[in-house]
Every structure is written in structure tokens, then in C-alpha cells.
């Protein structure tokens, strides 16, 4: 891999051991991937925040970089933590966990990473330009940046995204190259989604069909017949697809690279019908009232928080059911202006920030079952490696109606 002078200096150790370590990692990865040079990045988005999954190894790595004098060279945002930094006690979490979580956040801050604690960096100023090289981790944000903006990022890991943020570069391979961004499967969609939950169901269904695809940089579907109405629909669709390793999807008539993408890599065609969508919805419906309704995966934007508030206006949650709405600190500030946050809290719900439905170490005895409005949340909450709690799925509107007792199960 050819390095420009600033990165050569970093690798030589003249800019301190932290940047030396970061550059050395990028060189190892770049050489393994066959990259010929490094690309300057517009931004990074760094994952690996939760103490639950990162553990002491994460603390050790961040401390080492910080002590080695490393500071971010590129603009970089941070993924959600395992708790709301202000309200973790209300979430039933232990002080020991909270202390470690706060330490991790402060280490990221000292490395010059903006501690946004959000999986939707594109909703708070980390907005990549079409064609720009970026180094993002967090699968749903990667899918959104590649698909919606047409920016270019590989599926970076926690460590590679962080090292790119520090060194300001990423190795040029994979999805940074135009030819690797062409679709390799066509999906004909005749199902008609009614809300973003349906988009997440369609994404999950496609993701499962494409599982085990041998494409080096993951399956890249071209979706035909699907009509997203808003970026939120694509946010839900992309998050589900990303659960199965899809880094980029082209939606005909909606995403920017569609018109120009060649079809010579297409190896497969699949379909999604209205029957598939109806079956999926039916199979994941709850059969009993949940202990907790968790909305906001990916984290809800201000308009999404507004919508939940309008469904809750003047109502109260039913006894024995909690409602948590996950959003970002930045989007909550916007939703506070409209009064939406007050409306939700008055009804008995909680608007939580800095965290997300998947990375919370839920006290299981309090929350034996969880109802969600997103297939990605459904997939991971049930995962034995994370919460391992039974989950069910309904569209956002019905989730709220279950929480208020308007809909009986």
C-alpha cells in the first residue's frame, strides 16, 4: 500500500505511538485486501461503545491510543452506548456497568471523536457527499450511507473505523471501487408496504433469502417495484438488509446510483410478494401482552418521535406495560421543541437517548418479553449473544395501541 507523507509520518512513530498503531493496522488490512493506496476520508463513524460487548479489551485499546497521544484527523461520530447516560438508573442498570460505560465515552471524547452515541449519524451533521470515501462501522448506517447518499464505505469494524478516524484515511478496496458497487441480485417486489415496519420486514425477508451469498463484499440487491415514500422507509429497509451483511442496496427510482449501475454482475433473481409480507407479519405478532414496548431501531428521528407522540396524545399506558422510545440526543432536542417528548412522558412512556433497543443489558426479570416495530431489533433482542429475550413485532401504530391497552392481545 502506497502511503502519502502524513500517513508515512504516522507509521514511522514520529506523531506518537497512538497514530503509529492506527496506521499500522490500516496497512495490515489494506495489504490483506489488495489495496494499492489509501483514500482521504470525509468522515468516520465508529462503533464498539457498549461495555457489554467491548469489555476490558476495548477499555485497554482506547486507553493505549489516548495515552499514545492520538487525536482524530477526520470528522468522526460515535455509535450508541449500552445506556442513557443520564437515566440509566431508570433502565434498571447497575452502577458498575454505568461507570465503565462512562469511562469508555470519555476515552472516545479524549480521542477527538464526537460522542453522538447514535446509529443515525446522517441525522446530525455527519452527512456524506455522493461518491465520497468514508469509513463507517454500524451496519445500518453503512447501508444508508452507501445506498441513500451514494457515499462509499466498506463494512468497517469497530477497530478499523476508529483507526481511520485517527489516521484520516482508509485503504482503497471493495466498495470504494465503482465496479464492486454493481448489483449482483435482482429483487422483484410486488408486496405493498404500508409503513416502515413493513419495509423492515421486506428487508429481513430478502436478507434471509440472500444469506450465504458468496459475493466477496456481500449481496448487493437491486430492488424493483418498491416505492419508499421517505428516507425513513429506506432507513428501516437498509437496517434489516444489513443484519444479513448487505452493505448497499439499489432501489429503482429512489437511490442515486441506480440509473448508472451496470447489470452484468447479476447472478440471481428473487421475488417478494404480498403473501410473503402478510405471512411474516402474522408469524411475528405477539400472543400475549409484552412487558416492554421498544421503539426506535435504528434510533427514531424527530418526525418519528412526533408521530409516536401524536398516537399517544391524551392517553395513558396500561398497567404492567412500559414504552421506551429510543432516539438520539440531537433528534430529541428537535422533538422537545414540538412538545412531543413531553406528550410521550406524560402518557407514562420514556424517551431515551444515547442507546438503542439492542445493546441494553435488560434486567431479564423485569422484561421477560419485548414488543418492537423493527425486524432488526426483533432479530438481535432474541439473539443469545445479546439480550436473548423473546420478542414480537407489530407496526409502530399498533405497538403504541398495545401499550395503551387500546388493542387487546
Amino acid at each position, binding site marked *: 500500500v502506497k502511503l502519502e507523507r502524513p500517513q508515512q509520518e504516522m507509521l514511522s512513530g514520529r506523531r506518537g505511538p497512538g497514530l503509529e*498503531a492506527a496506521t*499500522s*493496522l490500516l*496497512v*495490515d*488490512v489494506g*495489504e*490483506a*485486501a489488495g489495496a494499492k493506496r489509501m483514500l482521504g476520508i470525509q468522515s468516520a463513524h465508529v*462503533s*464498539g461503545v457498549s461495555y457489554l*460487548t*467491548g*469489555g*476490558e*479489551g*476495548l477499555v*485497554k*485499546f482506547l486507553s493505549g491510543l489516548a495515552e499514545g497521544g492520538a487525536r482524530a484527523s477526520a470528522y468522526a461520530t460515535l455509535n450508541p452506548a449500552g445506556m442513557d447516560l443520564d437515566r440509566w438508573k431508570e433502565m434498571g442498570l447497575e452502577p458498575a456497568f454505568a461507570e465503565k460505560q462512562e469511562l469508555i465515552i470519555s476515552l472516545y471524547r479524549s480521542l477527538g471523536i464526537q460522542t453522538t452515541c447514535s446509529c443515525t449519524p446522517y441525522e446530525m451533521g455527519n452527512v456524506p457527499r455522493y461518491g465520497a470515501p468514508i469509513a463507517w*462501522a454500524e451496519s445500518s448506517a453503512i447501508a444508508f450511507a452507501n445506498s441513500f447518499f451514494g457515499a462509499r464505505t466498506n463494512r468497517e*469494524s*469497530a*477497530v*478499523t473505523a476508529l483507526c481511520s478516524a485517527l489516521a484520516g484515511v482508509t485503504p482503497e478496496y471493495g466498495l470504494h471501487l465503482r465496479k464492486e458497487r454493481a448489483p449482483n441480485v435482482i429483487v422483484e417486489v410486488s408486496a405493498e408496504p404500508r409503513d416502515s415496519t413493513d419495509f423492515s420486514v421486506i428487508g429481513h425477508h430478502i436478507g434471509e433469502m440472500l444469506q450465504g451469498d458468496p459475493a466477496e463484499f456481500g449481496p448487493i440487491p437491486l430492488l424493483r417495484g418498491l416505492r419508499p415514500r421517505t428516507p425513513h422507509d429506506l432507513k428501516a429497509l437498509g437496517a434489516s438488509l444489513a443484519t444479513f451483511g448487505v452493505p448497499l442496496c439499489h432501489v429503482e427510482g429512489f437511490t442515486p446510483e441506480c440509473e448508472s449501475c451496470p447489470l452484468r454482475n447479476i447472478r440471481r433473481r428473487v421475488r417478494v410478494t404480498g403473501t410473503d409480507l402478510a405471512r411474516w407479519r402474522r408469524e411475528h405478532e405477539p400472543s400475549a401482552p409484552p412487558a416492554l414496548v421498544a421503539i426506535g431501531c435504528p434510533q427514531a428521528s424527530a418526525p418519528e418521535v412526533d408521530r409516536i407522540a401524536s398516537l399517544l396524545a391524551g392517553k395513558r399506558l396500561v398497567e404492567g406495560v412500559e414504552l421506551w422510545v429510543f432516539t438520539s440526543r440531537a433528534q430529541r432536542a428537535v422533538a422537545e421543541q414540538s412538545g412531543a417528548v413531553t406528550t410521550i412522558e406524560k402518557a407514562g412512556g420514556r424517551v431515551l437517548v444515547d442507546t438503542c433497543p439492542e445493546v441494553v443489558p435488560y434486567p431479564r426479570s423485569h422484561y421477560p418479553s419485548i414488543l418492537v416495530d423493527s425486524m432488526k431489533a426483533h432479530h438481535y433482542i432474541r439473539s*443469545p*449473544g445479546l439480550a436473548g429475550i423473546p420478542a414480537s413485532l407489530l407496526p409502530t401504530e399498533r405497538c403504541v395501541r398495545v401499550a395503551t391497552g387500546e388493542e387487546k392481545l
Partner: protein
Amino acid sequence: VTSRTKPAQRARERPCAGRALRSSSESEISGIALVSPKPLTFLGFLNRRTGLVEQKDHPLFGESVAAKVLVFPRGIGSTVGPYVLLEMQSNGVAPLAMVMHRGDLGTIAAASVARIPLVYDVEPDPTMRFASGERLVVRRRGGKGEIARARG
């Protein structure tokens, strides 16, 4: 008197060779092999305190990777893999070296960060050549690596 080696025998003794990380220094390491017939993932597969394999349906369930030369077909991406290896290292239960038939960027990043000697894209398939319990020598030099049985 030394007997002439037959060609077939020579082929069998040809060392497994692959690529090594540029960041890692030249070295020769000897250790006992732990060979996994199946791919492995670091999160949820290994206990960070004990170094024991704790994935119940894995053929290596209950074995310790601590101070072993871990030989496996490939890694399955987990974004926090590097942190798992770093934590194992501070607990003194990390593998001594890792040898992979097919390199994946997740495991390569993890080894690079934790500074665990790694040889990847190894041919012939090291999981077919070596068995658990054998003493192996892992040599690395100039971006290349070789793995062979220790003599004697």
C-alpha cells in the same frame, strides 16, 4: 548412511506457507497446535477470562486456546473480535499464534491490534495437515509465513 527421500515424501514435508502481517516483526515461535475443523468467531465463542471455547455446538467446546497455535479454516466476522483478543491477552489466555487457511479482514484486524502472530491464506490447508496436540513451528519473515511440525 542417509536414504534418499522419495518425491511423495518430500511433498508431504513441504511446509504450509502463507502471508504474514506487515506490522509483525520477524520471529520463530514454537507451540502446541489446537486445530479447529470449523470456522470460528471470537464474540460468544471464547471465554475472555479462561480462554476456553464456550460455544456448545463447536467441535472445540471445552478446549483452551491459551498459549496454543490456533489453526482454523477462517474467521466469522465479529466487530469486537479485536477487543476479545486484547482482553484475553491481558488475562494471559490469548493464543500464542494463529494460522488460517483463508484470511478474513476481521481476524486480520484483530491479530494486528492484539499483536498476535498470524499467518493467513495458508496452502496447503493447515487444518487438514496438522492435528491438535502436535508441536508446530511458525516462522515469519518479510510478509511471508511458514508452518511446519517441530523436529524431534
